[in-house]
């Protein structure tokens, strides 16, 4: 659920008392019409708040925490679990690490990990914190239908409030889901710099191979599905176009 206009304007006045709406839009790179529309509708998107926070050097998580719906984000940042950290590493980076460790010297110069989020970050994050009953608890707590939750994961997205509710249901740090959805960066969530790389380095070769294998399997399935959809479309056009 997006943020109520009134509370948002109170917050905005708090961080930039002298700035006009035009200034705020210019500094944060938000289109004026977009903000105006969100304010008129009474629902300001979380992404808008995050952009403005960044422009005014306010931590977005702390900013979100001032709103009632996100009160759970307040307080000291909870460190991410190793599984959460590894879930936020791009599949290609996992494969690169696998090659580098299996045959040192053949993988080229060491590269830093790609920034969060990656192409399947949301589903991988949920899988990393799921004890088998997570989806059930989330749908119980938020009244979201399980198939709608799955649809979000397949589309690699999750509304921020649902992401926070999912963290709470899993008992992990509340901001992890916001990193996975790309709303905030890992630094903004209070994840230590290099934490993902360290978590990756701590994995054994076997663990790494299994994880990379799982990711490849999922990637292969999704690519195959895309190819089949493509073939189906082409056949229709070839016969009927």
């Amino acid at each position: 659920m997006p943020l109520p206009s009134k509370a948002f304007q109170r917050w905005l006045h708090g961080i930039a008392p002298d700035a006009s709406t035009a200034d705020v839009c210019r500094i944060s790179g938000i289109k004026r019409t977009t903000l105006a529309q969100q304010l008129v509708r009474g629902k300001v998107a979380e992404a808008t708040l995050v952009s403005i926070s960044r422009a005014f050097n306010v931590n977005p998580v702390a900013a979100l925490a001032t709103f009632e719906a996100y009160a759970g984000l307040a307080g000291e940042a909870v460190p991410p679990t190793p599984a959460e950290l590894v879930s936020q590493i791009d599949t290609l980076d996992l494969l690169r690490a696998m090659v580098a460790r299996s045959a040192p010297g053949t993988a080229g110069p060491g590269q830093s990990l790609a920034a969060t989020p990656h192409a399947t970050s949301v589903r991988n994050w949920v899988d990393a914190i799921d004890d088998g009953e997570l989806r059930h608890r989330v749908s119980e707590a938020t009244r979201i239908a399980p198939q709608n939750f799955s649809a979000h994961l397949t589309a690699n997205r999750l509304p921020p409030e649902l992401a926070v509710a999912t963290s709470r249901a899993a008992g992990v740090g509340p901001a992890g889901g916001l990193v996975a959805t790309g709303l905030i960066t890992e630094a903004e969530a209070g994840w230590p710099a290099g934490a993902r790389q360290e978590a990756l380095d701590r994995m054994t070769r076997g663990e790494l191979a299994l994880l990379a294998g799982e990711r490849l399997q999922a990637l292969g399935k999704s690519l195959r599905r895309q190819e089949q959809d493509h073939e189906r479309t082409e056949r229709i056009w070839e016969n009927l176009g």
Partner: protein
Amino acid sequence: MTSILPWATLAVCLLMAVARIPSAIRGENRVLFYLFSLITLDILLSIEGPYLAIDSWLGGFNLTNLLLRFLLYGTFLLLGIKLATGFGSPAGVRAITGGAGLAVLAIVAALTAWFFLVTDTRGSTVGLTGLQGSPSLEAYAALGRLYPGYVAVCLMPGIWRTVAGAGPLLLRGTSGLLLLGLLLLVSSQIFPLIPTENAWLLPLINYSAALATVLGLGGIWLSKAYYRRKSHRDPGFSQKY
């Protein structure tokens, strides 16, 4: 409204047929040109003015209606083959062109001719609505609805998969239109159950079915042209579809 609809349908069909002439000359998918021409002829023969003119020339005992029936069977055979092949439904192709499908066609065609011969059909009247009702006339009309309905049912699963699938939006929409046309066609099986005071519904359903089918079919062609042009301008797009 009910008097404009037949002519509007005829105009749309004729437009489609004419629009297919250039590609037919180039040798691309000529069957589509034949198909649109056949549908145009079917519609022409089902409109009162042209029907009476042609039937008076053929002797005035509604031979034109029998001719129209056979033209319709041919149209649906062709339509069925093209659509089932295009929408990737091998079961559909088998059901239409396999032994069972051809047997259905042969039996329906033979019975249609027989019931026509045993009915007193003197006096030109479009749709045979002006003739004295008799069981053989009812059977003749039912057979005329049966084969198109059979083909439509064979095609539906394949088309539905595309509508519900992950193809380009325009293609899914236009396939939906096609599906709607076939659905209306199948619904015509219950015509005898419609009370006579609602008889105006019958031509409305028939022409809506024809219009939706033809527009859906033309839309597929349009969607191909649209996405081809788009992927030409933006190469990244073709990787998606």
